[in-house]
């Protein structure tokens, strides 16, 4: 009986090992495309959320996600196992976002803004008080606009740390800096965001 339990544990462990990112990457490197599709299915939402916060247009974000996975597949041989696969993937998409930010100015189409605002009017709020809900929505809108208006490097820090809640060592690995450096960058980004939001919040107070 103990032997069978041990074998079962071994089987689970090997199955877990087979489905880990590292093993999927290894299989994809060897030409198993299904393994790469599993990686895509597993991490596409993570990459999409990050891309959407960086380029707040859904179609642009989707293009970025696809491009990031294509590049990841083409450069699988360069991926080293020391870093997490998601860290490497986010680094790719961060570079793509930076390139896009450099090449094109921010494109906020009026229709999309209007559609988003119209959608917010129809969404249900957190509280039963409709006035409070409206106020909360307005604050979120202010914050979203302030975040979109931040410089790209500050926005990336806010998205990584405060939206995606990535740990500082992982951010440092992604950016190629020390943990202290990552903390400092996040602090500067938060202050920059606060400076942009503060006038609207003070107006709300008064």
């Amino acid at each position: 009986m103990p032997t069978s339990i041990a074998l079962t544990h071994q089987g689970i462990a090997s199955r877990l090992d087979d489905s880990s990112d590292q093993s999927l990457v290894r299989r994809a490197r060897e030409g198993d495309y299904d393994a790469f599709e599993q990686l895509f299915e597993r991490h596409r939402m993570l990459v999409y959320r990050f891309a959407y916060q960086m380029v707040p247009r859904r179609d642009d974000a989707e293009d970025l996600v696809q491009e990031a996975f294509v590049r990841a597949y083409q450069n699988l041989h360069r991926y080293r196992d020391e870093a997490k696969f998601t860290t490497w993937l986010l680094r790719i998409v961060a570079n793509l976002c930076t390139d896009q930010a450099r090449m094109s100015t921010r494109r906020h189409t009026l229709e999309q803004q209007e559609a988003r605002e119209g959608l917010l009017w129809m969404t249900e709020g957190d509280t039963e008080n409709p006035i409070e809900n409206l106020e909360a929505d307005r604050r979120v809108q202010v914050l979203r606009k302030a975040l979109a208006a931040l410089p790209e490097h500050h926005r990336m820090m806010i998205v990584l740390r405060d939206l995606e809640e990535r740990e500082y060592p992982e951010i440092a690995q992604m950016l190629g800096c020390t943990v202290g450096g990552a903390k400092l960058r996040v602090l500067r980004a938060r202050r920059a965001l606060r400076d942009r939001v503060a006038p609207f919040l003070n107006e709300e107070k008064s």
Partner: protein
Amino acid sequence: MNGKLDKRLLELAFGDMNADEAESVRKAAANDAEAEATLRQYEAMKMDLLKLREVPAPQLSAERLRDRILTDGLRPKASVPWFSRYWLPVAASAFVVGFFVIQMKKPSVSVPSLVAANIEKPAPGLDFVPKADPGLKVAAAADASGATKPAAPKLASKTARRPRVKHDWVAKNDMPSPTLAGAMMKSPGTAGPSTSALNASSAAADTAMSASAPATEAEPLVLIQPDKDVDTGAQRATEVNANNVVIGG
């Protein structure tokens, strides 16, 4: 409120502190109304940021990705390890260093000050005194600024050239040297060859060819040996009787 407290409040509101640190900062903020208001503001900002996590549903599909990868090539691109952008600055530096090394090792062009010299004194052991052609002037070579090509010797006039008649005459009579030709043309009773007719260049030619020169009975020939005298450094010369010389060896 100072900047340090502001930083601590930011860290507290955004969850970058452990429990002990958070408690101490909360106590500090409780005594300061402005700090307390700022902390509430930061906490509200953090809560609002979390609401931004909601994103519209994407339309990502594995089929679309597969199509794109098939378009670009399914196999991963082969790496080219020898080419890297890091090699470019290295190659550029090597090129610059190599260029300077070559420039430093390039020999400087030596500018001769004289390309010809008048021979005023005969070498010891010679019984004739060759004189340089007065028409031949020594031309200074290139200027002092260092031209790359040494200048050719300039002649004062066309008449300064060695008379071509002599050469023509020598060529017509198949004679090896103008000097020998002159010696042959002289009558047996006359003295040695006129030294004034010899110039520096013809003397050199005579030196090389005198061993095979035809001679008359009354006139001795001077053979200039190829080796030099140890004491004086001048080339040795031997006077021989023309009767003993076999022409054509």
